[in-house]
């Protein structure tokens, strides 16, 4: 790793982005536990949440170590304010229904498969190790969610309509994944990880055939922009944090 190409702050931000994506999506998915359409999906969604929370723990710990101020995974998860979270907005929008949850898991898992694959060769060796482990999980999430997207899209008229509505809602948020930033450029230059924008073509190659098989129409790209990964979130984020952080905010310093 060429330390000269990336500042410590940029390196931390790149890792936090990875961490916050899986933390916030893990939190969202965990809301399903006990409320899924079939027990098998209760298990599958809990399992995915568990994988994501597990990934977030490793990544937050790594970010804390890079920062060197003694903040551990819990301090980073539960004591940062909204503007310091670096997840893309796509992760924080509400689950709404099983259709939206499934389409989001699919769009994001496809991205993660590509990202973890590249990160397995990161010059940040701790990150490379996390990536290698997470890649297997992301592949499983991708297969599972892709199967469901096809089932729902190419199911009944009602399921087709609901799944199309989910895709229409989520698609504009997916653009944020590929928005360029100086952090990406620096990470790419230092060999920490790819600029996310560089993954867009591969992502589409992974995602579009499945959506086609699911008989879903891919919306045209619009000027819509979201800014979660730059710390400007949606109105949904504050409510998610109010729930997630409540205990640590209420009992500062307690160990659990």
């Amino acid at each position, binding site marked *: 790793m060429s330390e000269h190409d990336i500042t410590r702050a940029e390196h931390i931000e790149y890792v936090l982005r990875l961490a916050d994506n899986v933390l916030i999506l893990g939190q969202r998915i965990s809301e399903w*536990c006990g*409320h899924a359409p079939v027990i098998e999906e209760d298990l599958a969604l809990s*399992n995915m949440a568990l994988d994501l929370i597990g990934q977030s*723990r490793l990544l937050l710990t790594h970010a804390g170590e890079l920062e060197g101020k003694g903040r551990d*995974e819990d301090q980073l998860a539960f004591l940062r304010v909204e503007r310091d979270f670096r997840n893309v907005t796509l992760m924080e929008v509400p689950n709404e229904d099983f259709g939206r949850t499934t389409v989001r898991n699919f769009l994001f898992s496809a991205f993660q498969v590509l990202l973890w694959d590249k990160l397995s060769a990161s010059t940040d060796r701790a990150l490379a190790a996390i990536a290698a482990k997470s890649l297997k999980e992301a592949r499983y999430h991708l297969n599972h969610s892709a199967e469901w997207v096809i089932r729902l899209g190419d199911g009944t008229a009602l399921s087709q309509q609901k799944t199309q509505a989910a895709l229409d809602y989520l698609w504009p948020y997916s653009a944020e994944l590929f928005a360029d930033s100086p952090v990406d450029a620096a990470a790419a230059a230092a060999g920490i990880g790819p600029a996310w924008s560089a993954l867009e073509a591969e992502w589409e190659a992974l995602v579009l055939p499945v959506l086609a098989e699911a008989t879903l129409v891919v919306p045209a790209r619009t000027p819509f922009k979201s800014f979660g990964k730059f710390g400007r979130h949606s109105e949904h984020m504050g409510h998610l944090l109010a729930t997630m952080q409540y205990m640590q905010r209420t009992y500062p310093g307690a160990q659990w």
Partner: protein
Amino acid sequence: PDYLAEFNAKIDAGGFIEPKDWMPEAYRKTLIRQISQHAHSEIVGMLPEGNWITRAPSLKRKAILLAKVQDEGGHGLYLYAAAETLGVSRDELYEALLSGKAKYSSIFNYPTLNWADIGVIGWLVDGAAIMNQIPLCKCSYGPYARAMIRVCKEESFHQRQGYDLLLQMMKGTEEQREMVQDAVNRWWWPSIMMFGPHDKDSVHTDSARWGIKRISNDDLRQKFVDATVKQAEVLGVSLPDPALKWNEARGHYDFGAIDWDEFWSVVGGNGQCNVDRLAARQKAWDDGAWVREAAIAHAEKHSVRQQQAA
């Protein structure tokens, strides 16, 4: 052949009845009732603990809790599968739950009010469940016995994790210790009630003869109390029963009178959460209808296409 005699002989010899074996209709019905009730309990039991997943105070505890609730869903799944070997469908059983015809363990009609409840459920509720369930690992119906072996193994793990959570809190702040004591105060008596009515008031006596229920309610309860009192001491919490004390003569702990009015009230649907629990399951079922229908429709399309291609 004298099926009944063969059946009884196999049970008396400690053998297992398997799905294809002949069995008395009453045995089959008893098992369906008990196994499905047990499966329903696992599924409904996801709700009180699930209530704290989004608020778990550390990522480690969040992960442990998620894994635990997931295990419960898994137990539900293989218990439904065991029940299905007796010739009923999971949907049938599930609809009996939603309609209120089938029961689930009353313990899940109590609310989880603070984070320590998660630990206390592991320690006391899972602890009591294990006491109840260990004898079932040797029960006469093979698929049920085998399911219970797996369930018991995982429940023991959950119990240790629950106890560990409480140990950690007891080492913490005054507020944390108060939470633990508060949770113990609320869950102690309901846990004691999990063993069911006193033997003298208990129905279902066929279960003993058939090798389904091998130890009596009161014996199991006593065993649980004896084990738990010591764990409470280590933890440093008091159990909310002034009558609880060692009886040298019996070699057991004596304990106070159980409020059976409360027990039957909760069984009868008037617990604090009966309505909310069933409403939550009903909502998940209703909201998920379009998903289940889509899966069936897609599977049909898929198989038609495969046939056409063949």
